[in-house]
Every structure is written in structure tokens, then in C-alpha cells.
């Protein structure tokens, strides 16, 4: 038999993991609803038929709700509350009855037309969550229609007897709730997004899912084999044996890592002698937000806002920004998110026409300097951040602060914005914390003054290193001079942390240095409070922190203050770790 052609399709990864297996096509057929003209005498009977369909659908939904409540949870069963209300909805019922009477059409047709109207209204809303309620309504509609056309209400998924990947146009909450889960390898759907019920249920069950594949149900056949990669958001139809082997290996590796990491996920980042630090996430794009908790980070230590500003000719409006900040704050709650105000210039340029070209962009009109000169743009962003702060878990951070004056100016503009909001009676967090990013040597050297003006510090090492060592890391001729362990860098970091602590504020770090275990150990010894790193690095860092003693880290930190080169700092640290962790110390480092 000729092997079928293989193809890869990209969708939206709704729940991580890899599944390989045969498919189960669910509920592909749609109801065909025919329009039939009624005679005047038929109308009362038609209305009665409609009402009976509502009543019997209601009965079956109530028993389904009870079943789900028993099998899954009360919370899952609440999904059906909205369904039941739709069945009792006076506006809807009256609309249908009026249509039957006035247009003299059959109940199926009248009902499906009215449903279409409401579903379209919902689908046109901006809010994703509300948008997806159109799915609930269609689900109820299907149930009622199947009663009307005299079919037994279908529960296709209940008949899933063998392990398979479920492929459907869409899965309603009701479908997913009654699934025989032991037989479900994964979910694949034509429509849906990250907040769809399929996504929510799949991730709560830990089953991989890829959604939003448009027409997967039309592309594939019953006999096809699928690979789905929920982390990548891809589906491979009829993979070659070689690709299957590849993914099997990947699956085993993922499973092993997942096991180690899942053990760590909920564990605190605490040393053997009970020193607690925070491991937070750096986030650049909204798509990364789910990773924050997935990798066990405690909130977001650096939320970059540039993505909204880059690659466009205009500036994002307050509403668009607010939406983004609000969503991220809601997502990480009860943990906090530190939103960094616009940090453009340097290596990131706006496409807006009035941005001048510069000879030394890293020393030029960038970040807070740009923002202070453009209050229109800056205050729009501040308003959006402040409004999102009603959730009480938002902090603001100003980038590229070079001295006290600049921080004061930025804070003054924030105060102005606050009082404007107060006047308009728009809510925000009155106690919102304001931090300074320490990434310019002058800020590090005056951190003692800055600490009186700031609620927290966050050290940005990438810039701090390049500014203090005068090294452009992207220039390969001098890149070797970029040394995070350079005594100058270490001593700047130490003085920033010490100044912060003298004034009772927390000091974090959001540069790459914090994610490298070797330096992280040094930073622990320098008493850094928060390590903000790319989320996927969190388990590794946590594993190290949980394997060492704070007192040892302090001993090491004291020792390295006495050596004169980066090489010595690194060697000393490596040997020290080898001593306390034994021969397996390498597995704790990045190598």
C-alpha cells in the first residue's frame, strides 16, 4: 500500500505535550435545517413542538450537569448554567415564537435563524471570552435542533472505545466533560483559541491540544495517523516512520524533564538553610504569559512593552495598551507583574517616521530619555499601566535611569497622570510601587541616592556590563571582553544590592546573568532578592538554589571580592560548587 503524503499544519498550541496515534473524528456532520412554510392551522402545533424540545433538552442537560458534577467537579458543571439559562431565555423564546407566527415557518428554521443572529452578535465582540460564548450557544442550539428533527441527542465522544486523538470542528464544554478521558491522547480542532473550553479542559487534564487549525476536519481521513505537538502548536498528518521515531524520542525526553520540573514547579526557591528568593519571569510577548506559571515562576519581573510599539507607523492607543497590561496582570494574579515603560532606541528602533538616526544609539535618545521628551507617548502608557493597576499586582519600572534627577522627573510625570485619573474618577492602585532599572554605571554608583526615591531596583546586566566594560557584545572583535564575572561588574552589583537593602527596598535582576547558574550562585551570595529570567530557565535555577546553602554562597561571595579577574572569579566559583555539590555539580550548571 502506498504511504499517504505527510504534511505539517500550524495551529495554536493550547496545551503542551506530544501525542502520536490514530484519530477519532467527532461530530463532523452538521444539521441541515430546511425551511418549510406552515399553514395557519399548523402554527400552534409548531410552537408546542418547539416548547417541548426546550423542555426535554433542559431535562437532559440537567442530568448531564449532575453527571459532570460527580465525575469532574462542581466548577466544571457550572459551565452548563449558561446553557440552561439560554433554554429559559424569554427574549430568545419570544423571538422564535414570533418568527414562527409571523413568517409561518417551521420551528427548526425559526430557531436556527434566531440563534445565528445572537451567535453572530457574540462572535463580533472584541472580548475573546465573550466571543467564545457563541460556542456555548451553538452547542445548546444543536441539542434543541436534534430534538426537533427527532434524532437522539448525539453524544459521539462517549463511544470512544480505543485510544485516539480527537479531531473535531470544535468541542463544546459538554462534549469534553463527558469524554472517556483514559482513551483521549489529544485534541485537535478547527476553531478555538487559548481561552476556549477545549484549551482549558485539555490543560487541566494535561492532555496535549492544538486548536485553531481552520479546516483540519476536512483535510484528514479516518485512517490517518497524527502527531500533535501542543507546545509548538503543530500537527503532522501521516508522518514518516523517521518523524514518528523523532517525536517519540522528544516525547520521552519531555516526559523525563517534565517529571523533574513538575516536582519543582510548586516548590519554593529556597536554599537548604531556608533563604527564600524569588524566581520571576522575563516576558517579551503575550504568547509567553502562560509559560510563567507553567515553568513555576512567581510572577513577572520584567514585562517588556516594546512589542506593541515596534513595526508600526503609529503609536498604540491607551485602550490597546490597557488591554494588554490588564490581561497580563490578571493572568499572573496573585503574583505581581513589573511593567517596564517603553525602552526603545539602543538596539530597538521604532518605525515611526520622526525617529532620527543616531551615530551612537546606545548612548543616545532612548528609553526614559525618549519618554521624558515625549510626554504624549509616555503619559498614554502610564495611564494604561495605572488603569491596569486596579488589580493591585502591578508595579512600574523605568528603564535607563542615569541619575536621581531623571527618576524624579519620571515620577513627577507619573504623579501628574495619577491626579488626572483621580479627577476623572478612574480607579488605579494608589500604592503602586515604582522601581528604577539599574543598567547605567552612573545609576549603580549613585544607587544610595536612588534608593531613597525608588520602591525597588532591578539590575539590567546586559546593558550594565556593556556600559561599564565599554564593550559592544555584537562586535565579534571585542565580544570576548564581555565578562559578567568582571570584578568591576561584580562590585557595581554588590553596591546596588547593598544600597537597596540599606534603604529597605528589594533588589532584583532581569538580565541574562541571573539565569546562568554559575553567576546565580554568586548573586545569591550577594543577597539578590529576585531573579527574573526567561521562564524555561526557572526549573534549572530553582534546582540549584534548592541544592545549596545561603551561608555557603555568602562565603563564596566574600572570597570573590578579593580576586582581580573574571577568569579567577569563575574558576573560584566553579571549584567551590564542585566542593559543595560533588561531582554532579556540572549537571547543575548550564553545561
Amino acid at each position, binding site marked *: 500500500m502506498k504511504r499517504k503524503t505527510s504534511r505539517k499544519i500550524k495551529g495554536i498550541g493550547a496545551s503542551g505535550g506530544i501525542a502520536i496515534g490514530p484519530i477519532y473524528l467527532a461530530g463532523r456532520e452538521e444539521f441541515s435545517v430546511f425551511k418549510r412554510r406552515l399553514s395557519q392551522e399548523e402554527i400552534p402545533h409548531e410552537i408546542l413542538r418547539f416548547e417541548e424540545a426546550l423542555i426535554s433538552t433542559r431535562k437532559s442537560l440537567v442530568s448531564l450537569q449532575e453527571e459532570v458534577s460527580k465525575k469532574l467537579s462542581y466548577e466544571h458543571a457550572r459551565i452548563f448554567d*449558561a446553557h440552561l*439559562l439560554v433554554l429559559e431565555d*424569554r427574549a430568545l423564546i419570544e423571538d422564535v415564537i414570533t418568527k414562527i407566527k409571523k413568517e409561518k415557518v417551521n420551528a427548526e428554521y425559526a430557531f436556527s435563524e434566531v440563534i445565528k443572529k445572537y451567535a453572530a452578535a457574540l462572535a463580533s465582540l*472584541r472580548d475573546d*471570552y465573550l466571543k467564545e460564548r457563541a460556542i456555548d450557544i451553538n452547542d445548546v442550539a444543536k441539542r434543541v435542533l436534534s430534538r426537533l428533527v427527532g434524532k437522539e441527542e448525539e453524544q459521539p465522544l462517549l463511544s470512544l472505545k480505543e485510544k485516539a486523538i480527537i479531531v473535531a470542528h470544535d468541542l463544546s464544554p459538554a462534549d469534553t466533560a463527558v469524554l472517556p478521558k483514559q482513551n483521549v491522547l489529544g485534541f485537535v480542532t478547527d476553531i478555538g483559541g487559548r481561552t476556549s473550553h477545549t484549551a482549558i479542559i485539555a490543560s487541566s487534564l494535561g492532555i496535549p491540544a492544538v486548536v485553531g487549525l481552520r479546516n483540519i476536519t476536512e483535510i484528514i481521513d479516518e485512517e490517518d495517523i497524527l502527531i500533535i505537538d501542543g507546545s509548538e502548536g503543530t500537527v503532522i498528518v501521516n508522518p514518516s516512520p523517521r518523524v514518528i521515531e523523532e517525536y517519540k524520542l522528544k516525547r520521552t525526553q519531555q516526559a523525563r524533564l517534565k517529571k523533574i520540573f513538575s516536582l519543582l514547579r510548586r516548590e519554593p526557591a529556597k536554599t537548604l538553610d531556608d533563604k527564600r528568593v524569588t524566581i520571576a519571569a522575563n516576558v517579551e510577548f503575550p504568547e509567553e504569559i502562560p509559560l510563567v506559571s507553567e515553568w513555576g515562576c512567581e510572577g513577572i519581573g520584567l514585562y517588556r512593552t516594546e512589542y506593541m510599539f515596534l513595526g508600526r507607523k503609529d503609536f498604540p492607543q491607551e*485602550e490597546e495598551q490597557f488591554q494588554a497590561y490588564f490581561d497580563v496582570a490578571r493572568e499572573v494574579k496573585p503574583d505581581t507583574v513589573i511593567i517596564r515603560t517603553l525602552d526603545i532606541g539602543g538596539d530597538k528602533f521604532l518605525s515611526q517616521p520622526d525617529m532620527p538616526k543616531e551615530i551612537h544609539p546606545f548612548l543616545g535618545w532612548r528609553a526614559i530619555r525618549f519618554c521624558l521628551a515625549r510626554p504624549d507617548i509616555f503619559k498614554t502608557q502610564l495611564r494604561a499601566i495605572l488603569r491596569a493597576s*486596579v*488589580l493591585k499586582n502591578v508595579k512600574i519600572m523605568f528603564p535607563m535611569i542615569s541619575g536621581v534627577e531623571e527618576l524624579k522627573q519620571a515620577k513627577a510625570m507619573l504623579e501628574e497622570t495619577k491626579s488626572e485619573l483621580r479627577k476623572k474618577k478612574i*480607579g*488605579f492602585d494608589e500604592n503602586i510601587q515604582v522601581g528604577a532599572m539599574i543598567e547605567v554605571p552612573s545609576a549603580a554608583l549613585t544607587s544610595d541616592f536612588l534608593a531613597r526615591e525608588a520602591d525597588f531596583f532591578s539590575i539590567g546586566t546586559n546593558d550594565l556590563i556593556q556600559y561599564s566594560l565599554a564593550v559592544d557584545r555584537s562586535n565579534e572583535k571585542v565580544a570576548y571582553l564581555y565578562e559578567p564575572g568582571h570584578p568591576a561588574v561584580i562590585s557595581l552589583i554588590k553596591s546596588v544590592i547593598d544600597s537597596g537593602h540599606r534603604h529597605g527596598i528589594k533588589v532584583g535582576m532581569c538580565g541574562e546573568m541571573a539565569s546562568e547558574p554559575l553567576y546565580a550562585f554568586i548573586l545569591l551570595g550577594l543577597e539578590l532578592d529576585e531573579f527574573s529570567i526567561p521562564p524555561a530557565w526557572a526549573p534549572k535555577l530553582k534546582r540549584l538554589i534548592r541544592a545549596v546553602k545561603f551561608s555557603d554562597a555568602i562565603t563564596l561571595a566574600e572570597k570573590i571580592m578579593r580576586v582581580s579577574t573574571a577568569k579567577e572569579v569563575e574558576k573560584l566559583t566553579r571549584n567551590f560548587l564542585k566542593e559543595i555539590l560533588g561531582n554532579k555539580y556540572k549537571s547543575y550548571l548550564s553545561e
Partner: protein
Amino acid sequence: MMSRIEKKITISANESLHARPASLFVQKAVKYNSSIWIKKGKEVVNGKSIIELLSLGIEKGTEITLIAEGDDAEEALQELEELLMFYEKKN
């Protein structure tokens, strides 16, 4: 006594009126004799209809007006407002 009361509420920078609070709202609204209306901009919908309420798309930051008309208008409005405020605080 028949009366008609109106009250402006801003679903301030919080959660949209999602399925769950919307369901609760309707469940409470239908208990009253009064007619309940919700106005957003120029649109007015029946507060006892989940489907109309959801389609109105009450997103965060929207200002809405609650209107109750009937013999128990006052109690109705008070309870419904409390419900909305409860969800405001909770989020």
C-alpha cells in the same frame, strides 16, 4: 407602587461581564416582577435574557445603566448592583 429607577454603573477597569456573573445576574433578575433593562450607549437589552445580556458585550471599562421598572424596582436594583459590585471587588 409602580416606579422606575435608573442607576449608572461603570464596569470599571475590571473583568468583562462574563458568562458566570451574567448567569447570576439573570438568575437574580428573573425573580423580580419588575422589568429589568440594561443600557449601554444607545442599546437597551432585557436584563432577564442571558443571550441579550451577553450579546451586548459588556467589556471592562464600559459604563452601563441599570433600569428597573415595577413594584419591586428598588430592591431589584439594589441587589443587582450589589452583585455587579461584588464581582468588581472580587477580581
